[in-house]
């Protein structure tokens, strides 16, 4: 019986030919990363003046989140480059090959910056409720380092999956709790939903980077959805801050 992965499910629906049609090469991967990095940096630099003028912590953590997304995507493209160019199955194969140390370092940094980007986004929404205590931020840094180390040292796809599902459930729980306690629930205010979507697609991206064959064939859809979420946030930032 074939392993139950996104790929087997997808092939069950649409078959090999359709999967090949959506098989993504290095160029497409790099272009996707480039778009997300540009979006993230536009958000980061577009809100620079607002933070410099106000010194508002919420804006600071929001900007940090997108800076970390940009850095994480940089390392993600590096990992993708190694996986595609040297035709390895995934990061699990990094040890035996000559570029092992560089690949593992990139994987470690990718996981650390990925986790911290999500934690910063959470913290930007929750810092007031958590009374702005900065020790929680140190705790998040610690958790991000632990997640990165466990993932790299274990080299087990199930551990990658488990950690990312744990991360996603944490985000959903915190965002849902925050939304429930919010007094002023504006009609049509869907930002919490966007944050959950952002975290969801980000975590799918992490799984896709660490276990490339897990979503093979579905990558294009994940990439399009992720790009859409980033562009949506960028649009809302530009709408508020202005195109300058």
């Amino acid at each position, binding site marked *: 019986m074939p392993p139950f992965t996104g790929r087997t499910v997808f092939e069950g629906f649409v078959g090999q030919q359709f999967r090949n049609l959506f098989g993504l090469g290095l160029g497409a991967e790099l272009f996707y990363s480039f778009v997300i990095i540009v979006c993230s940096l536009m958000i980061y630099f577009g*809100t620079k003046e*607002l933070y410099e*003028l106000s010194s*508002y912590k*919420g*804006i600071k953590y929001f900007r940090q989140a997108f800076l970390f997304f940009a850095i994480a995507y940089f390392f993600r493209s590096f990992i993708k480059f190694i996986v595609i160019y040297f035709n390895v199955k995934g990061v699990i194969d990094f040890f035996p090959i000559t570029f092992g140390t560089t690949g593992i370092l990139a994987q470690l940094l990718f996981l650390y910056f990925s986790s911290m980007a999500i934690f910063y986004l959470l913290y930007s929404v929750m810092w007031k409720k958590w009374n702005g205590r900065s020790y929680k931020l140190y705790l998040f840094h610690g958790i991000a380092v632990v997640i990165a180390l466990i993932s790299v040292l274990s080299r087990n796809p199930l551990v990658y999956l488990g950690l990312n599902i744990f991360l996603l459930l944490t985000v959903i729980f915190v965002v849902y709790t925050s939304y429930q306690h919010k007094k002023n629930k504006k009609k049509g205010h869907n930002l919490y939903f966007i944050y959950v979507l952002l975290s969801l697609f980000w975590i799918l991206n992490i799984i896709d980077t660490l276990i490339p064959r897990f979503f093979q064939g579905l990558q294009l859809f994940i990439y399009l959805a992720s790009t859409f979420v980033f562009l949506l946030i960028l649009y809302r930032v530009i709408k*508020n*801050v202005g195109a300058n």
Partner: protein
Amino acid sequence: MVKRERLDIIKDILSIIYQNRNSVKITPLIRQSNMSSTRFKEYYHELLEKELVNEIINGGNKFVSLTNKGYRFLEKYNTIVSFIDEFEL
């Protein structure tokens, strides 16, 4: 909403300076801002530190005036507040 109040207070202090033709003595500034002198001092030091205002000595009297950054804060205040609201920060 503690942080929003902080931004409001900063905007109020800067607006008072602006309405006084960008030059006001400390005592009337404290009075017009409706704050205790202790609390005012706290904010005033922050404004000086962030270079939103500066002090000018003229004829032995100390006047407070807005810097370019202070003007920019007043211009951008509504944007800052709407951004914080939009992203639930």
